[in-house]
């Protein structure tokens, strides 16, 4: 956006055009009212349900409050020092970052490979794009319930299938085994969200100049070399968007964990969002939970700004 939108009228106020200026300022006041009439509803809703709660979360985090008591005690940074020493909170943060790492591994290359395949189609692109996007249309509740049944140790599709093909030894309690639970959840979340990234990759692939491939063909480059030397570098922009979205999404994860494991077994799949939710709404540690949510908010907003900064710099 150009800065010319910020137009002011620097007309000098001298005796000769005082009257004219008066008329102008009246008009500009009317103009402000018109602008305001367009913006006011959005501003009110936004301030009421986003900006104010954001400030309120920060305020709450400096108090000691159980959600019901009429008085709040100011405790300064106590909640934050407590968080830093809370083994479960730290465990949740670590789990979040483990989740980020696994998501990046599972999500990006397979989705890119799939998009490249779809992009090579001469006919039926729309069909496959629509079909592969289907899981992303479902609600997290549907996906969570569906996959808890798929992972069910007795009747779940995975274990039944493994036993049928004679690999019963591999069957296990996917959501109850401490070492498997996060990878199992990340597989579900990959299934739930790859559709969005596929759409972004497909859009990015469409913008690549086809003549580069033709030139590479003349040079006798094979498909793998073309992929690494043309496709991947040309998708830099899209890749930035996708990586940042995957990271931020993984940090915000709540629904699937809550529906499938509630953080169990023994906090092995606890993430910050589920821990904060428990602290606020079942342990009545409202201000403590607020501090946790502020930490999460700062990490997410900080990373978003950092990713945008890198992207702008790279352009």
């Amino acid at each position: 956006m150009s800065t010319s939108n910020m137009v002011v009228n620097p007309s000098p106020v001298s005796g000769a055009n005082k009257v004219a200026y008066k008329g102008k300022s009246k008009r500009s006041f009317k103009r402000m009212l018109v602008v305001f009439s367009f913006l006011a509803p959005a501003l009110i809703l936004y301030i009421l349900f986003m900006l104010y709660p954001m400030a309120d979360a920060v305020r709450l985090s400096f108090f000691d409050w159980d959600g019901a008591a009429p008085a709040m005690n100011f405790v300064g940074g106590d909640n934050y020092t407590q968080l830093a020493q809370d083994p479960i909170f730290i465990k949740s943060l670590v789990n979040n970052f483990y989740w980020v790492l696994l998501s990046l591994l599972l999500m990006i290359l397979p989705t890119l490979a799939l998009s490249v395949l779809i992009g090579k189609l001469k006919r039926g692109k729309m069909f496959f794009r629509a079909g592969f996007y289907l899981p992303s249309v479902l609600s997290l509740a549907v996906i969570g319930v569906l996959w808890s049944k798929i992972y069910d140790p007795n009747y779940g599709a995975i274990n039944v299938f493994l036993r049928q093909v004679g690999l019963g030894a591999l069957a296990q309690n996917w959501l109850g085994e401490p070492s498997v639970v996060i990878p199992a959840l990340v597989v579900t979340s990959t299934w739930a969200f790859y559709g969005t990234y596929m759409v972004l990759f497909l859009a990015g692939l469409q913008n690549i100049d086809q003549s580069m491939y033709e030139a590479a063909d003349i040079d006798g480059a094979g498909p793998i070399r073309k992929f690494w030397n043309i496709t991947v570098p040309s998708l830099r922009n899209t890749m930035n968007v996708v990586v940042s979205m995957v990271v931020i999404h993984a940090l915000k994860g709540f629904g699937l964990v809550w529906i499938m494991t509630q953080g169990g077994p023994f906090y092995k799949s606890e993430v910050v969002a589920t821990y904060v939710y428990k602290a606020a709404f079942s342990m009545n540690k409202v201000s403590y939970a607020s501090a946790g949510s502020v930490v999460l908010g700062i990490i997410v907003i900080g990373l978003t700004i950092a990713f945008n900064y890198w992207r702008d710099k790279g352009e």
Partner: protein
Amino acid sequence: MRTGVAPWRNPQILLWAVLLVLLAIVTVPIFWAILASFKTNMEIVNQPFSLPKTWNFDNYVKAWNLGNFNSYFWNTTLITIGGMVLVLVVACPAGYAFAQMKFKGNNLLFYLFLLGMALPVQAIIIPVFYQLKTFGLVDSLSGVVLVSAGLALPFSVFLMRNSMKDIQKELRESAYVDGASEWRAFFSIMLPLAKPAVVALLVFTFMSIWNDFLLPLVLLISNDKFTLSLGLLSFQGENSTNFGLIFAGTVISMIPSIIVYLIFQRQFVEGMSEGAVK
């Protein structure tokens, strides 16, 4: 393309075959659930991957009536429609103002809205709960509508502003010269021209509110106010071993979003790639 080549040597046909197999693998969970919803529990355990022997709708009837899916469905519909109307009414004028009107602080205010796109719901959900409590709006559908619309606003304003920015300013100015007021220019010129974006906005809002989980979880308390997502979860808790019944509930919950998606697929996907890349 050469003629007379065996089909498996034709790369396009090979590609189709590979993608079809992949698509089948990826969508297996959905079809597994749909098939199971027509089966008895015995069949689910013994023939998990076969077609049901008889297509019986018992599970659906039970889920709809006894499982309260009837009420979950209408609650979700009311919340979603309310949220869509509110977002539409509020975000379109704001997008117009940011895209087309000159005023002091335009950029600054717009960036303030963008900040909301980065803000995770989890960071504000606790104060929002206590705020609604003071308004007496906890455990009410209108509370969920208001907050859902508030949360959808940053992206919606962003989408509308971007699409209205591409519309030529001259069109609006010519109406302006004719003496039309800003609001008339908005309704008679901008809104009709921005129709594709408005449709995309409505589809997005539908998806995000219909599928939402965290907000209803925090703001709704009694079962008769539950949305499909919450209802499905509590239904699963009550019938944890009755797979057929649970899957019937799951299918009921997913049908509306699948239908809306199939109808508006193109607007949805195009809106998404534009919104994210810009």
